[in-house]
């Protein structure tokens, strides 16, 4: 039966098996795509200002200090739920003002404290960024993070 013990048969099983798992993965990813685009995110609330906020988030590489939904650098606090940490669930306006004020007050320059750069965002950009963070806060994340501390 040595004809089947060849390496070319091994290669075929390797390719076939991998293709099988990959096909399963693609199928589940397609379902997850649908889920993310309909169930877990606020699609109606994904306004242009939220998108602009996301681009500002990217332009300044915020993810290279902060994490968002637990991904990113771990140098600065998690921001996926920062809106609720600032009380945005109870007082959205107050949280917005507090976040903007925080951004504008950076860097603190306090010795021995981690410093956040001043990005010179104008008021509209700050609003967009807060819109993005508020939108992100509404993503259904299977109840992560465990504590509001992020």
């Amino acid at each position, binding site marked *: *039966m*040595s*004809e*089947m*013990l*060849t*390496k070319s*048969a*091994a290669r075929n*099983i*390797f390719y*076939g*098996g991998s293709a*099988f798992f990959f096909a*399963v993965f693609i199928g589940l990813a397609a*379902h997850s795509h649908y*889920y993310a685009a309909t*169930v877990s995110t606020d699609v109606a609330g994904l306004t242009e200002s939220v998108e602009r906020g996301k681009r500002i988030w990217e332009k300044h590489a915020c993810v290279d200090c902060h994490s968002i939904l637990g991904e990113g650098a771990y140098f600065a606090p998690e921001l996926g739920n920062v809106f609720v940490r600032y009380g945005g669930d109870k007082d959205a306006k107050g949280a917005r003002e507090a976040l903007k004020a925080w951004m504008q007050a950076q860097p603190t320059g306090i010795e021995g404290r981690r410093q956040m750069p001043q990005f010179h965002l104008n008021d509209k950009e700050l609003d967009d960024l807060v819109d993005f963070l508020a939108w992100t806060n509404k993503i259904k994340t299977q109840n992560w993070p465990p504590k509001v501390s992020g």
Partner: protein
Amino acid sequence: MTRSRTPTLTDSTIPDAAAPPADDWGPFTGLPGHPLMWVLIGSELLVFGAALLGLLGGRIADPVGFRLAQDHLDRLAGGVNTLVLLTSGLFVAIAVVRAKAARVAATRGWLAASAGLGLMFLAVKAVEYATEIGAGWGLDSGGFITLYFLITGFHALHVVMGLIILGIVARWPTAGNVATGAAFWHMVDLVWLLVFPVVYLVR
């Protein structure tokens, strides 16, 4: 494209040592079917074993929710499907015997019979799924329902994969190919022998 004439270190110039025979697969030698198929079989058994342990572990955390969902399963259909797969396994095992005797037509006939039962399994499963989905169940319902769909769905995809493999080995029905394809099919069968009692009956 000239070869370098520089004297070189010998490890690049030593020809590969005389190769051992192609059917020497170390510890895998002697397994029926291709050794790499057994790597796949082993991986699958680990996956399903872990999933079943996960299911019963999850059940400890939420016994009531699990029971309420589980009571809606069609246990009779699950039992019938067990018999279908076992019979299908018999047919494919006979196909292996015939393939060893190089009886191509008989081999293909038994493979086809086996695949037919595989299709019947899928049909029964589809009826079950249709009822359950009609009752509002979905892959992301959570708890028992999610695990039920994941485990049986992943198994059903293996049946589909098995049908494809049976088709391929029916096209090239050498003894080795048929043994390799049969090994996969039996693995699908074997997994169901554990899935059926644990998912449907443990309650």
